[in-house]
């Protein structure tokens, strides 16, 4: 009988309690840790040892420091005394909230109290956890060295006997790395499903392939693309490598929340959204809160549009410095590898809008000591003109400035060797209605950094690109967009080259040619210079891609004879829906691709030679990304490179021979395969016929039942029977007229 409430005995109430079971293991496992109360306490060590009389004075003095980061009171500071009535040199402090206690640890730890004493501030919990007896071994034990493990050769791909290039292909959920085999199907190296969440990115010298996951970044490398490093930045969205692959910047829109006991991240990173990593150690160097870019200084009540500033940190060419800008205010330059602020202060530049490092270490004429250059600009503020400045680092000296008027926007374009910097100035007329563009080109290597102005452009320049390692450039201008017109305005492509002058190293920049009435909006120089591709990307209506040669070997028009260029259109190709164009690192091939990230029509990628011959088309479902693997800088000296160029014909003979051989092999293979397939097919057909005949016998159908029918109804061979010609006479009334005969 089940016990009812009335008959419930003492024994029934305790029925559930089973004293035999030992809960201690579960208790230990699920014990609620009562840490909350102690989270507000910190322990301050390193205080001067004072007698009881002056203890109050010290506490008051200390309080000023402590209250700077949180709020606490005299009563909340406990400074114990020993039997000699002297303080022990430490104190316990209670803050109002755990956050304040944390802030005290972060900000006060290691700060000096006076000349002799440096505070060490720790959480009480931490002291309890790490400092308790037995937690730390009394005796020093040297750390165990891990046995040496050979690592993958990170540059193994450079040893390909045919000097082929690799590329990464992201389509659907799969990422693969392939060898480029020209017009033949690419050879697969690895292909993995779900290799990345967002995108893949090569490091600038091609050593690592970075994949992006919600947990952070993973770096892959070596011949089989094994995992090299993991950089845990939760919900990371953007990645940037330093030019020498030593460091990496990662960004997430969401501030990082570090949970206690995280193996890599510490309190330092909590609440930040940018981390600068040391790639070799896989540890964060320093973390930051990102600044947003505003479209302009806040005007009135209108909230300025916020934009992510990316790259948030810009690297100097030798990655000794990294800098970022607080728009309208200052540029902060950090020194690596310590990531300390250069000269302990940011450089105040009122109104600074943008800056760019020189992409190479430049030596200016007459300057002996080491320097890196960066260029910045400030808009017109009040009656002060807009200004472009060049700063030398580490001296932070501004070595060249130029004032500009009626400026609406400025873009800074460094030439790849840092020889020139082109300042593209969009200027408005007095009425602020029409726009025109001036180019102010700083010749960095020449004495005093002279500036050349190109002001022959009537229209707005929408795109500009220097020739890599050269002195020529291409720009695209566009007319005004008629308001309400759905058709984008026509653009014009202009090619510029320096004049050839005897004696002078580089003459002034002159227009070579302008191609009017184009739709182009993008410029892609070959990484080796000379060839340039100008195309229309991200367009709904036009997809033309023009291949230009700036040093055409044919006859040069008379008008260009003074210019260091001979322009020739090599070819125009079309790629429907093209969104991206990428040169391979050697400048031999170029890939045009249509990514599913932009639209879903005819996704895929096509590969062309530098001269615009299409080698292969690869329509690919859900194609997302094509990235060539970059190559590190050549190891050949200038002389050796010259030698190669000189003997190019001999080398090319060798390669052509190889190519021919490969084609021969491939052709024979194809023919052999076809022969085999054909023989297999005829054999199958013969056997099937025999089997069929047997079965017909079994069914009692005459063997030629079908044949007879075919012979009668359907002549199987036209030649034998003679084609039956059906002649038709069709009468058609063309015109009808009635004549009345009187």
């Amino acid at each position, binding site marked *: 009988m089940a016990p009812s409430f009335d008959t419930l005995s003492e024994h029934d109430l305790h029925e559930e309690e089973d004293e035999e079971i030992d809960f201690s293991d579960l208790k230990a496992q699920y014990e609620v840790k009562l840490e909350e109360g102690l989270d507000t306490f910190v322990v301050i060590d390193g205080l001067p040892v004072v007698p009881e009389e002056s203890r109050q004075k010290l506490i008051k003095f200390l309080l000023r420091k402590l209250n700077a980061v949180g709020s606490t009171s005299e009563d909340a500071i406990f400074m114990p005394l020993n039997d000699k009535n002297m303080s022990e040199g430490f104190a316990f402090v209670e803050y109002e909230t755990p956050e304040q206690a944390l802030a005290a640890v972060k900000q006060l730890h290691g700060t000096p109290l006076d000349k002799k004493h440096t505070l060490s501030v720790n959480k009480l919990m931490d002291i309890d956890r790490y400092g308790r007896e037995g937690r730390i071994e009394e005796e020093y034990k040297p750390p165990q060295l891990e046995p040496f493990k050979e690592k993958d050769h990170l540059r193994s791909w450079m040893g390909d006997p045919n000097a082929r290039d690799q590329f990464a292909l992201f389509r659907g959920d799969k990422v693969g790395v392939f060898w480029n085999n020209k017009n033949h199907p690419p050879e697969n190296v690895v292909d993995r499903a779900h290799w990345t969440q967002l995108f893949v990115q090569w490091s600038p010298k091609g050593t690592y392939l970075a994949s992006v996951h919600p947990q952070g970044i993973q770096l892959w490398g070596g011949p089989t693309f094994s995992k090299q490093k993991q950089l845990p930045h939760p919900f990371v969205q953007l990645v940037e490598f330093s030019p020498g692959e030593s460091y990496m910047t990662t960004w997430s829109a969401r501030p990082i929340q570090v949970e206690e006991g995280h193996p890599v991240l510490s309190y330092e990173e909590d609440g930040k959204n940018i981390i600068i990593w040391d790639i070799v150690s896989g540890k964060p160097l320093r973390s930051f809160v990102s600044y947003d870019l505003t479209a302009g200084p806040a005007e009135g009540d209108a909230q300025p549009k916020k934009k992510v500033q990316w790259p948030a940190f810009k690297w100097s060419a030798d990655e000794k410095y990294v800098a970022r800008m607080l728009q309208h205010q200052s540029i902060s330059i950090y020194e690596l590898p310590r990531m300390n602020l250069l000269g302990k202060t940011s450089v105040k530049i009122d109104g600074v809008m943008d800056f760019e490092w020189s992409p190479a270490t430049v030596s200016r004429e007459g300057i002996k000591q080491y320097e890196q250059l960066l260029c910045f600009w400030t808009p017109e503020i009040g009656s002060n003109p807009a200004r472009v400045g060049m700063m030398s680092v580490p001296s932070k000296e501004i070595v060249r400035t130029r004032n500009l008027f009626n400026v609406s926007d400025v873009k800074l374009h460094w030439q790849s060797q840092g020889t020139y910097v082109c300042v593209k100035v969009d200027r408005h007329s007095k009425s602020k209605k029409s726009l025109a563009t001036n180019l102010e080109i700083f010749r960095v290597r020449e004495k005093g950094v002279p500036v050349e102005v190109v002001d022959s452009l009537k229209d707005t320049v929408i795109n500009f690109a220097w020739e890599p390692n050269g002195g020529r450039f291409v720009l695209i201008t566009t007319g005004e967009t008629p308001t309400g017109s759905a058709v984008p305005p026509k653009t014009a492509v202009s090619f510029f080259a320096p004049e050839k002058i005897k004696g002078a190293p580089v003459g002034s920049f002159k227009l070579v040619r302008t191609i009017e009435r184009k739709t182009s909006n993008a410029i892609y120089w070959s990484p080796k210079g000379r060839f340039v591709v100008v195309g229309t990307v991200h367009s709904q209506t036009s997809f033309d891609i023009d291949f230009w040669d700036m040093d055409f070997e044919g006859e040069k028009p008379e008008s260009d004879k003074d210019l260091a260029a001979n322009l020739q259109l090599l070819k125009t190709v079309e790629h429907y829906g093209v969104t991206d164009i990428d040169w391979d690192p050697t400048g031999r091939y170029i890939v045009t691709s249509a990514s599913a990230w932009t639209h879903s029509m005819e996704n895929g990628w096509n590969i062309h030679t530098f001269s615009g011959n299409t080698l292969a088309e690869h329509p690919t479902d859900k194609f997302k990304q094509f990235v060539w693997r970059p190559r590190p800088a050549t190891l050949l000296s200038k002389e050796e490179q010259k030698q190669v160029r000189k003997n190019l014909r001999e080398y090319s003979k060798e390669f052509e021979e190889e190519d021919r051989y490969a084609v021969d092999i491939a052709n024979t293979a194809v023919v052999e395969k076809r022969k085999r*397939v*054909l023989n297999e097919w005829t054999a199958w057909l013969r056997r099937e016929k025999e089997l069929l005949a047997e079965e017909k016998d079994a*069914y009692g159908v005459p063997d030629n039942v079908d044949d007879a029918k075919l012979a009668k109804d359907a002549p199987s061979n036209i030649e034998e029977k003679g084609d039956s010609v059906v002649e*038709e006479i069709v009468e058609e009334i063309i015109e009808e007229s009635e004549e009345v005969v009187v």
Partner: protein
Amino acid sequence: MRPILLSGHERSLNQIKFNRDGDLLFSVAKDKIVCAWWSANGERLGTYNGHQGAIWTVDVSPNTVLLATGSADNTVRLWNVKTGECLKVWDFPTAVKRVEFAPDGSKLLAVTEKRMGFLGTIVVFDIKYGEEPREQMVDQVEEPNLRITCTESKATVAGWSYLGKYIIAGHEDGSISQYDAKTGDQLENVQAHEFDHQINDLNFSADRTYFITASKDKSAKLMSSRNLAIMKTYVADTPLNTAVITPKKDYVILGGGQAAMDVTTTSARQGKFEARFYHKIFEDEIGRVRGHFGPLNTIHIHPNGTAYASGGEDGYVRVHHFDKSYFDFLYEVEREQLKK
């Protein structure tokens, strides 16, 4: 190769068939009318009227006496080819997606749709022909002599193998089945195409020892009727609706295009509404014929291999008589083998 444009249908084509002699062409579309055409010049011979819904399928008996059609009005109708008279109506609970006469014309199979609680079935009727003149009206049987129920995945297409020995069916889940045509037992089931990519068409070679399938998974496969071995695969860049094997030349013709419902959202240039010719043995694409401005729903080949007709979502049938170059084309290895 100048096509003859047959514009007699008002809606998208579903199936077209040449008769055994190749002089006639029958076409059915969503517009409820069956058309008969002279294949030589594209002149319309007549229509067969009576269906109440879109007509999915048509077949003509080997002796060109009877015509069978299956429709969304849940009937199979049997017609007198010569007079256009409807001889018989079989009613079903659901739409009929496929009909086909056995190679000797003595049987007719019909594939019924799975819908409203009814499973998809393949039914077989005995067909009777009158004494001479054979077109005279004969009472046809009321009930099928065989009923195969597809419990796993519904059949979308079906046909007869050599000697009418097997019934080969393509399913919605991308698999191909072989049934014993006498008992209806399933002998084989092969997942020939990607899972859940429907088989849209199935056509046999002249001697019915092998057949070709066309699937939504953008490929067509050549398979053996005897053991369902996959012998060849033809890969296209668009979902395929139809595929045929050409007699006389070793080609196959594939047709398809962006699914009809997606077409409005895409440009015409990327609809891929072309008939594609592949070499049957080497699996290479060797040519394309454009012309339709909608996906190709059906292709059929003249029994002599001298012409082919294609019917599209655009409502047109295009009949193409092959040029000399079509017959002359040979791979080097084929030429060598011929010399031997």
